[in-house]
């Protein structure tokens, strides 16, 4: 399924979603990947590289990554000003944060993300249109519900802490406590480590076995 690549990809578009968050769309270049995997990339010729989950779907004819500008960042800050035609050096795909093919049609999924940790779930939702899932997205402000229209409305829940315009006011852990999870649900967590740790504890308390918990930490 995977194809080894380590080469130069041309940017098609940089889509700014907020002041600090953007989607880079680049040529697909024939890369085969499984939704949930990530790429290691940086500006062509620069030593600095970072890992980003693939944001686009398996069947899209382009590749996308969702990037949040990090203060003093050595990659995200520089990539923000890239233009169509500029080049990225891309290595990958990597990672095991993927769904088991045998479960896709039969299992119920809970996806829990913080911030740009929503990216692999966007890729998964774009790739498997009939998937039985719920996505809980923890964000500070409601404008960080990145492209929420890409998900079926009844499957996307934004947990917003700083304003009242989300689906739920509070942290993802508050939502989980108010909406306990069925033990058979396959839970996938992606984002910052503190959110994952807190959600992990709540889910364990609710009886979800650790074998049903999968995590991808953004560092």
């Amino acid at each position, binding site marked *: *399924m*995977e194809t*080894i690549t*380590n080469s130069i990809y041309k940017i098609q578009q940089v889509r700014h979603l907020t002041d600090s968050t953007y989607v880079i769309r680049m040529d697909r270049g024939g890369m085969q990947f499984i939704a949930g995997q990530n790429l*290691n990339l940086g500006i062509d010729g620069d*030593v*600095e590289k970072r*890992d980003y989950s693939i944001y686009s779907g398996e069947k899209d004819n382009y590749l996308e990554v969702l990037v949040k500008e990090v203060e003093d960042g050595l990659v995200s800050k520089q990539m923000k000003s890239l233009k169509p035609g500029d080049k990225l050096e891309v290595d990958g795909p*990597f*990672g*095991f944060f993927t769904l088991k093919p045998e479960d896709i049609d039969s299992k119920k999924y809970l996806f829990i993300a913080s911030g740009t940790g929503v990216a692999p779930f966007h890729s998964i939702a774009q790739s498997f249109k009939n998937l039985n899932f719920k996505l809980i997205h923890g964000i500070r402000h409601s404008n960080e519900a990145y492209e929420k229209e890409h998900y079926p409305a009844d499957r996307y829940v934004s947990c917003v802490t700083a304003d009242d315009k989300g689906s739920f006011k509070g942290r993802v852990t508050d939502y989980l406590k108010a909406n306990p999870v069925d033990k058979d649900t396959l839970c996938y967590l992606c984002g910052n*480590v503190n959110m*994952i*740790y807190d959600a*992990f504890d709540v889910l364990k308390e609710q009886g979800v*076995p*650790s*074998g049903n*918990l999968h*995590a991808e*930490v953004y*560092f």
Partner: protein
Amino acid sequence: MNMSDTERTRPVIEQMGYEWTDNEEEASLVGILACSVRQKAIDKVYSRIHKWNKRKNKETLLTFVTGCILPSDKDRFLKLFDIVFPMSELQELPDMIKQYGIVTPTSLSSGQNNNAIYQNPRIKELKEKASELKLNEHISDFWHINPNYESDFEAFVPIQNGCDKFCTFCAVPYTRGREVSRPSSEIFEEIQNLINKDYKTITLLGQNVNSYGFDKKGEEVSFPELLRKIGEMGKKSGKEFWVYFTSPHPRDMTDEVIEVIAAYSNLGKQIHLPIQSGDDKLLIKMNRKHSVEKYKHIVDTIRKLIPQATLFTDIIVGFTGETDEQFENTRKIMEEFKYNMAYIAQYSQRPGAVSSRWVDDIPKQIKKERYHTLTQDLIETSSTHNKKMVGNTYRVLVRGMERKGDFISGLTEGKINVRIYSSDDSLIGKIVDVKIKSATEFSVAGELITKEELQSA
């Protein structure tokens, strides 16, 4: 370049099994002994490393810099080189290279002895004290174990290179590249050749041996199939030898691998299964891709199918953010899994690894305390295992003469160190019967038993 530093660096590298080359283009490990006294010399360092980093796009190359480095340069070097260290830490270079997943014959053949010594807190403290006093001058006695990679009875066969796991404490995927499997036909040919030459141990090497074949998308045999075929080759030969592998990753350790090891006498009954931490949340932070539950299943299967197998592991203490509770969880699994040996490391940042971007927030003193605590826990379990060996007879591969020349020593099939009450060096390279008479923390001692004695017993 400081010639004295060069003279001391070269043997340390050569003892790992590396061969010196004057042709920079063919080197797989390149380093610079820097001199910050002259800016021109430092400018040359930058020019070289940029050239080497470009080479990394096409080949596997590990780079290091040591010598005299200004703090301002050090910050930049950390981003450009794989390994940056002061000369005072030269003796740790093999360990640093090993942490990049580069397994050398020497790191394996001497590893157990080294680690046994290193893990003895009293000796470790003495070493540390000595290093504080003399800094650059404590290398000679640390490297007393002569590497034996040109042995005519122990062989090392690479089967796989690179890593796709991306553990956050490790830079291997960035330095060694993706997992690539060696063609099985070549492996079988090499192993058959070694069997024909009466080799007694063969160790299959790779950063993630049990993901062997994954990169070939079904066009290559799987790891258990590879082992099965090797087991069949051994069976057909009728010879006594033991095949090991290192290192496997728990994520890819299937029941089938354990079933195959159980089924063939030539597949060594010693399993080295790194766990790194006994805490699920810390495993997530380490990006290990498995839970304690998954690991426990593997150990349960080993205990059920191969009760006589010895179990070794790797553990990191003081990883970024490790709480007292998380450390206690590691102690609990040490108690539960009762390892014969654990290679315990105090966490230190490795340039290029994801965790090198985090604040190394566990004070050195805490790391030391956790290291000592866990070492004591290990001593309890390893001593218990070793004491149980007393009175029993084991097949032992004689590997060498102890330093003073009074005793020969070797390893059991489970890789337990054995001191043998004999000075008969003609036995080196042979597998003999030894009746165990006494046990210590990390080794046992015993006497040779003849076939007649064994039969009459």
